[in-house]
C-alpha cells in the first residue's frame, strides 16, 4: 500500500508498463522502471520526477484510455510529481502553498511590489520616487545598494536553504544515503541530459502536445526560458562583482556585460514563457494535471514579469518612470526568489536530482 491514491495509481501503471516495456526506448522513466520489480513511494516519486512529460508513451500506448487498462503515465506522473513537491517542501508548514499556488504566488508578488513602492516612498520624499536620476548609483538613490544586496542576498539564501532541505528529503526518499559524495561522472551526465532536455523529445521525434503530431516547440521554448533565466542570473552576478570588486556602480551602459547578458536573457525570458504558455494552452487535456495549472501558470508568468519589468526598466531608466519601474522589477524579483521553493521552480531541481540518480543507476547496471 502506498501513502496516497496517486502513488497507488502510479504503482498500478508501473506494474502494467513493466509487463509490456514497449516504451523502453522513449525516455529514462521506463529503463529506470525495468530495474525494479516492486515500487516504493520513493521509487515512484523518483520516476515521477524523471518524467519530462513529453507525452510519447501516451500516444504510443495500446492501453491508454478509452482502453479498460486506462494507462495514462504522463498525467499520473504529473500529479505524483506535483504532490511530491509539497511532500518535500521545507519547512513542512509551507507545503500548503502548492495547493493554491497561483493565488499564493500572485498575492506574494503583489505584496512585494507594494512593499517596494511604499518603502521607496517612505524612506525618500515623494519627489525622489518620481524624479529623474542618471549616472552611476542612480538606482541607489531610491534604495541604498547595501540594503538591496542584503535584502536580496537574504531572500536568495533562504530559497537555497529551503530547496536544499527539500532535495535532502527527496534524496533520502529515493533511497540514496544523505551526504554521499555523488560521483563526477553521473553529475556530468545529468548536467548534459538536463542541459539539452534529452528526454523531452519523445524518443527522437519530438513531444506530443495538442495531438499526435510530434514537435520540438516545447523543448525550444523551454530552452529560451531556461537559458534566458541563466543569462539574467549571470547578469546579476556580474553586476554584483562589478560593484564590490571594481567599484563600478549600476546602471551600466547598454554595451556593458551585465546589460548585454541581462538583455539577451530578458529577451529569451519573454519569448520562452509566452511560447510555453501557448503550448500549455493548446495541450491535450488528457495529459494535463489540472490541479497544477495554477502553479505552472504562476511560475511562467513570474518569469515573464521578471523579464518584461527588467527590460522596461532598461528602456525608461532615464525617465521619471524609473522609480516606479524599479520598485515593480525589484518586487517581482523578490517575490520570485522567496517563492522559488514553493512553486514550479522546484521541478528543475528535483528533475536534475532524478537525472543524477538515473545516471548513477545506469552506471551501476553497466558495471
Amino acid at each position: 500500500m502506498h501513502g496516497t491514491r496517486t502513488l497507488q495509481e502510479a504503482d498500478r501503471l508501473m506494474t502494467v508498463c513493466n509487463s509490456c516495456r514497449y516504451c523502453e526506448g522513449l525516455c529514462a522513466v521506463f529503463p529506470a522502471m525495468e530495474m525494479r520489480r516492486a515500487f516504493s513511494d520513493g521509487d515512484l516519486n523518483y520516476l515521477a520526477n524523471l518524467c519530462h512529460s513529453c507525452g510519447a508513451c501516451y500516444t504510443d500506448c495500446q492501453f491508454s484510455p478509452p482502453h479498460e487498462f486506462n494507462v495514462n503515465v504522463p498525467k499520473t506522473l504529473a500529479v505524483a510529481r506535483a504532490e511530491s513537491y509539497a511532500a518535500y517542501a521545507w519547512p513542512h508548514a509551507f507545503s500548503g502553498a502548492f495547493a493554491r499556488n497561483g493565488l499564493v504566488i500572485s498575492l506574494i508578488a503583489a505584496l512585494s511590489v507594494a512593499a517596494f513602492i511604499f518603502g521607496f516612498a517612505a524612506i525618500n520624499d515623494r519627489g525622489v520616487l518620481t524624479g529623474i536620476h542618471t549616472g552611476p548609483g542612480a538606482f541607489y538613490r531610491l534604495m541604498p545598494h547595501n540594503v538591496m544586496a542584503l535584502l536580496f542576498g537574504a531572500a536568495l539564501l533562504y530559497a537555497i536553504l529551503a530547496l536544499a532541505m527539500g532535495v535532502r528529503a527527496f534524496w533520502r526518499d529515493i533511497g540514496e544515503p544523505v551526504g554521499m559524495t555523488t560521483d563526477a561522472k553521473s553529475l556530468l551526465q545529468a548536467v548534459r541530459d538536463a542541459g539539452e532536455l534529452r528526454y523531452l523529445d519523445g524518443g527522437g521525434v519530438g513531444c506530443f502536445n495538442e495531438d499526435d503530431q510530434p514537435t520540438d516547440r516545447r523543448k525550444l521554448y523551454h530552452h529560451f526560458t531556461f537559458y534566458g533565466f541563466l543569462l539574467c542570473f549571470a547578469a546579476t552576478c556580474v553586476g554584483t562583482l562589478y560593484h564590490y570588486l571594481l567599484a563600478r556602480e549600476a546602471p551600466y551602459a547598454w554595451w556593458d556585460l551585465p546589460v548585454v547578458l541581462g538583455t539577451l536573457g530578458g529577451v529569451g525570458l519573454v519569448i520562452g514563457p509566452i511560447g510555453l504558455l501557448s503550448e500549455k494552452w493548446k495541450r491535450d487535456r488528457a495529459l494535463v494535471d489540472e490541479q497544477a495549472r495554477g502553479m505552472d501558470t504562476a511560475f511562467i508568468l513570474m518569469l515573464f514579469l521578471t523579464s518584461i519589468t527588467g527590460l522596461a526598466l532598461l528602456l525608461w531608466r532615464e525617465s521619471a518612470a524609473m522609480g516606479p519601474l524599479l520598485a515593480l522589477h525589484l518586487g517581482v524579483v523578490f517575490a520570485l526568489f522567496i517563492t522559488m521553493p514553493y512553486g514550479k521552480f522546484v521541478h528543475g531541481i528535483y528533475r536534475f536530482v532524478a537525472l543524477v540518480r538515473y545516471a548513477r543507476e545506469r552506471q551501476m547496471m553497466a558495471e
Partner: protein
Amino acid sequence: MVDLTRRFDVLVIGGGNAALCAAISARRAGASVLVLEGAPKFYRGGNTRHTRNMRCAHDAATEILTGPYTEEEFWNDLLLVTGGQTDEQLARFMIHESKDILNWIVEQGVRWQPSLGGTLSLGRTNSFFLGGGRAMLNALYRTAEELGVDILYDAEVIDLNIEHGMFLSAQLKQPVGGRTEVRASTLVAAAGGFEANIEWLKQYWGEAADNFLIRGTPYNRGAILKMLLAKGVQDIGDPTQCHAVAIDARAPKFDGGIITRHDSVVFGIVVNKHAERFYDEGEDIWPKRYAIWGRLVAAQPDQIAYIIFDSTVVTSFMPTLFPPIAGATIAELAGKLELDAAALEKTITDFNAAVQPGTFDHTILDDCRTEGITPPKTHWARKIETPPYLAYPVRPGITFTYLGTRVNKQSRMLMKDGKPSANMFAAGEIMAGNVLGKGYAAGIGMTIGSVFGRVAGREAAKNARN
C-alpha cells in the same frame, strides 16, 4: 470530408500494418486511395496495435540488429515452424523482399530500436518498433495522411459487389451518414482474420471457444474474409488453426495484448482443473514452448489450467500484470484456486519425489528432469517446496487465425478456378496462411503485412492505371 461519390483508384479495407503499407505504396505510385477502417480511431490497426517487432532478413549487423540473418536462415526457420506447410515460392519472395522493407518502412516514418529487455533471443533476427506497434501504426497513419490518403474510421463494409472475380464496389455503413456505395478500380483486402468472431471459432472448437480470450481488438471479426470466400475467392490455410498462447485467466475478454502472457511454465508445473499435470513443462525452450501452451490449455476441461511454482523462482521471469495467487500451504493455494486440495498435494508430492538431481540452467536444455512420472518434465525440473506456493491461472489467448485468401506473388487474389482476380489484392493476416500454414515465428506476421501490403498497393495502383 471525404468525397465518397468519386471513384477511387484503390480501395483499402482494413487499417493495420498491411492496409497502411498498401495505402502508402499505392499513393506513392500515384493512385487515389481510400482506407476504410472498421474500428473507431483509438482501436485502429487491428493486431498491429499489439505488435512490437518485425522479422526481416539482412546480410550484416545494423545499428539495432546484432548480426546478419540471411535469407537462407530465415527460410530454414520458416520451414521449421511451419513443418513445411508453406508456399515456397511466395515465402522465398517475401523473405527476399523483407530485406528492403527494413529501410522502406523507415522511409514511411517508422523508427527502430534494439530488442527490448527480456527478448535477447530476438536481438539478431527481429527489429523492434520504437514505442511499440501503436507507435509504428501512428507513424504510418501520419505518413498516409500527409500523402493525401483518405481515411475513414468506424467504416464497416457490409457487402462487396464482385462479379466474375472483379471487384466493382463496396457497401459502406457508417454510424453517421448511413449506407453508401463506394466505388474503386481495385480492392486491397487487408482486414485481418476472424479471431474475435467467437461464433465462427465455435464452428471448429465447439463450446470451448466461449472460454477463449482474444488478445486483440473485438473488431477482428473476419467479415471481409467471409465475403471474399463466399464470392469465389480461393481459400488457403487450415480453418481450425489459430495462434494461441497461454495467457492469464484474469485478462479481459478482448484486447489484453501482450501484457497478459505468462512465460513461467518452465519454472514450475502446470495442472488442469482436476489438479493433474497433462504435458511436459520442460519440453522446449522459448519461444517454441510459448506458442504451444495455448492449444494445450484449450484441450483441457473448461479450458483452464494453473501454473504452479514456489517462492524461489518468483524473480526468474518478467514481472507480470496480475500478481500470482499465493498460499502458505499447498492446501491453502488449492482452496484459493478452487482445486481439490488432496489431489494437488498428491500431484506435487509425486512430482517432487520424481525430481532428479541436476544443474539448473533455464537458458539451455539442462539436465534437471523427472523420472518415473507421466508426463515427465524433461528439463528444468526442480522441487516445489518453498512456501509461499504460487499460481497463475491461464486460459487460451487467441492471437490470430490462419484461414485466408489465396494470393500470388503480386498479392493478387486467386479465384477458386485458379485464375487470378482482375482487380483484387490481399495483404496481411487475411492471406498469412499462404506463407504460414501452421506454427509461428516472432515478428513474421508483421513481415507478411509490410511486404505484401507494399506489393499489393503497388500492384493495385498499376492495375488501376491500366
